[in-house]
């Protein structure tokens, strides 16, 4: 094969996937109360369309999409709306959320609904159906999926890339999805390819998931040009730009979207969610979550109703061990540590990882000794050592001139830093500071 299957630089954190990668996906029962923040996706939050006291069925809309860059939010269980107020959000902030008291004796069957026949739909109608289904990127960023299905008119998309890299340590939800739901993923791919009008699709999967590679290969229909491509095991292989580089050999130009190189990237889980919209008509109301970590008694891969509180989820996994120290939503490299276990699982929650005390970072950091390891780790070839020096003295414009915008906060630099300097945190704060400066100038 002429094309490369990796990218330059990157890091090798311990994979820790053996805790859950052979565990079949199970279903998590409905908790007593579910919480639905109206902001679960990139773009505008949904607009509330229920009021306190309303009774909803499973799959009913709680919030409508607010324009094209938004998706609706649906109830994942039948119940009664008991409150609409601020609630802890998994990103660490507070957000307006609908609290739903789940009917204890409801059959939890969705209302009968029309399932759209995808063959008869125009691309625009597919986009609309996907938006109505509330589907967002399930890889973590929660970018509305229908927006990716409607690329700008002047762009020539030729390849659909499906992201099955799952490079974050501990997480196995995409892995298990590919192993157990390969035909569904391929059905979603079929719908996407037709909607985008592309003839070629590549599924990139890290080599550490041989069973997923095998299952996906076996499920490829003869009439569909889908290539299953094993990739180098390296973090952050699942980052959009790294994946495109690995699959096509092309670098997405700095500051540009993948569409400029004729590529659309979609996460495995999102593709399965699209398939579900056209299989059952059900919107995105549950997702596969890896609950794992050395601080957890019983790791698992679970189908979790969106809105399930972390407290309930962890309790279902027999709770935390004595040396549990940190609860993270997402993977340990880019995820968000939780201060409040009342925060719910939302659409973008790929996993919940509980780290034991000896895995967490030390508080102490040392001065930068300019060892240069961060330069060799940075997948977009920045100079984190210099950017870190600039960040600590607040020279944000200079950071901007040195391509701070290209940093995707993957944390590879901070992971290899022997001085334990929180580089990713510094860069995130610098980006925020720059945005504020820009906002005050305008």
């Amino acid at each position, binding site marked *: 094969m002429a094309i490369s299957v990796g990218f330059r630089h990157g890091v090798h954190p*311990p994979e820790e996937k053996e805790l859950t990668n052979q565990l079949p996906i199970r279903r998590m029962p409905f908790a007593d109360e579910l919480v639905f923040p109206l902001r679960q996706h990139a773009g505008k939050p949904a607009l509330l369309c229920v009021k306190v006291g309303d009774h909803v069925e499973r799959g009913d809309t709680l919030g409508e999409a607010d324009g094209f860059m938004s998706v609706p939010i649906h109830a994942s269980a039948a119940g009664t709306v008991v409150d609409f107020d601020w609630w802890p959000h998994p990103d660490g902030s507070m957000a307006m959320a609908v609290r739903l008291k789940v009917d204890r004796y409801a059959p939890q069957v969705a209302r009968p609904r029309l399932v759209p026949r995808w063959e008869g739909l125009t691309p625009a109608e597919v986009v609309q159906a996907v938006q109505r289904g509330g589907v967002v990127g399930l890889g973590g960023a929660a970018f509305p999926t229908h927006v990716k299905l409607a690329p700008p008119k002047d762009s020539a998309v030729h390849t659909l890339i499906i992201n099955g890299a799952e490079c974050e340590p501990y997480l196995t939800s995409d892995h298990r999805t590919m192993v157990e739901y390969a035909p569904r993923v391929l059905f979603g791919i079929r719908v996407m390819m037709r909607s985008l009008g592309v003839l070629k699709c590549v599924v990139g999967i890290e080599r550490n998931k041989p069973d997923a590679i095998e299952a996906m290969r076996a499920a490829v229909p003869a009439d569909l040009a889908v290539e299953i491509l094993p990739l180098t095991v390296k973090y952050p292989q699942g980052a959009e730009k790294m994946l495109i580089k690995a699959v096509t050999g092309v670098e997405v130009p700095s500051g540009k979207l993948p569409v400029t190189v004729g590529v659309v990237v979609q996460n495995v889980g999102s593709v399965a969610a699209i398939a579900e919209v056209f299989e059952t008509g059900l919107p995105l109301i549950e997702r596969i979550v890896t609950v794992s970590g050395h601080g957890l008694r019983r790791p698992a891969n679970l189908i979790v109703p969106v809105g399930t509180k972390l407290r309930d989820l962890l309790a279902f996994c027999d709770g935390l061990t004595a040396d549990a120290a940190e609860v993270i939503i997402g993977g340990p490299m880019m995820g968000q540590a939780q201060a409040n276990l009342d925060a719910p699982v939302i659409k973008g929650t790929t996993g919940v990882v509980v780290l034991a005390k000896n895995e967490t970072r030390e508080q102490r950091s040392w001065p930068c000794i300019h060892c240069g390891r961060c330069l060799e780790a940075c997948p977009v070839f920045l100079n984190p050592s210099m950017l870190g020096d600039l960040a600590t003295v607040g020279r944000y414009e200079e950071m901007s001139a040195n391509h701070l915008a290209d940093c995707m906060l993957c944390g590879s630099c901070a992971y290899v830093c022997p001085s334990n300097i929180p580089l990713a945190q510094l860069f995130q704060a610098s980006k925020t500071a720059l945005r504020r400066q820009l906002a005050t100038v305008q």
Partner: protein
Amino acid sequence: MNESSAPHLVVTASPHLRPGDSTPRIMWNVVGSLVPVIAAAAWFFGVSALLVVAAATLGAVLAERAFGRGGSLADGSAAITGLLLGLTLPAGLPLWMVFLGGAFGIGFGKAVWGGLGQNVFNPALVGRAFLQAAFPVAITTWPTVGGGFFTLKGDLFALPFMHPVTSAVTSATPLGLLKFEGKGTEIASLIFGGRGGSVGETAALVILAAGAYLALRDYLNWRLPVSIIATVALLSGVLHAIDPHKPDVPFMLFSGGLMLGAVYMATDMVTSPVTNLGRWVFGIGVGILVVVIRVWGGLPEGVMYAILFMNALVPFINRATQPRVFGTSLRTTT
């Protein structure tokens, strides 16, 4: 799970995983790798070598304790400075001078710049340059190897500012012999040690082995010693071919402080470039300067000044060798 578990949760910014390495660990590994080098020094120069290394380290460590920020002694960097300085000195240098050199190296080579990570020049070499300027005769008085282990190689315990009594047998270094008397030295004694010179530079093989260990553990960047040694070899090979009176390649590589400088001084992370391209530039620059100073300069040895000079250029090298950012055709600007 109970309510009480929540208050104990740690909340850190991502990435949350603990890295496998730490700066003190790197530093103490470098210190550990120096143990065989110091042992070789003791083998050749007896207890005098140990006294010199100990005095230099004491000076450096006390200066770090006095000027360094809280707890900075524990990171091990001051110990490295002291040990390395000691290894570059003659075995007979009065200990008060040695001590002063160590303290000067840390005080003016590191603390005034802002401590670890901030200094431009290698602190051990700053200390040595100071001694060279302050005590030019004492620091070029080279005792011979051999004699009893406990025989002092010079007036080590001379009082400060007293004229030291030089009773020990001294001899010129191989580089000095060549420069001032036009005499060569047996290559075997260069490689395996046992010739005149500073306490730590005479055992080239031990230094190379320690360097290989550090490179394998990623505690030093192999590009620096390789580029320095290759440049010196290439350049002196060409010069020797043109004029056979010039020193040949093995002599240039194994005499003086080249190995100690290439493996331990030039590879100081703080004072060498952060980019790989920059490291090649730095190493080649050091190599050229070493040959130029040794062959045409007034001094017999040039490793120290070559490295110090290139140290000064590191900010410019870093700036000129920034990596090309992903998705652009340009290097970052700065």
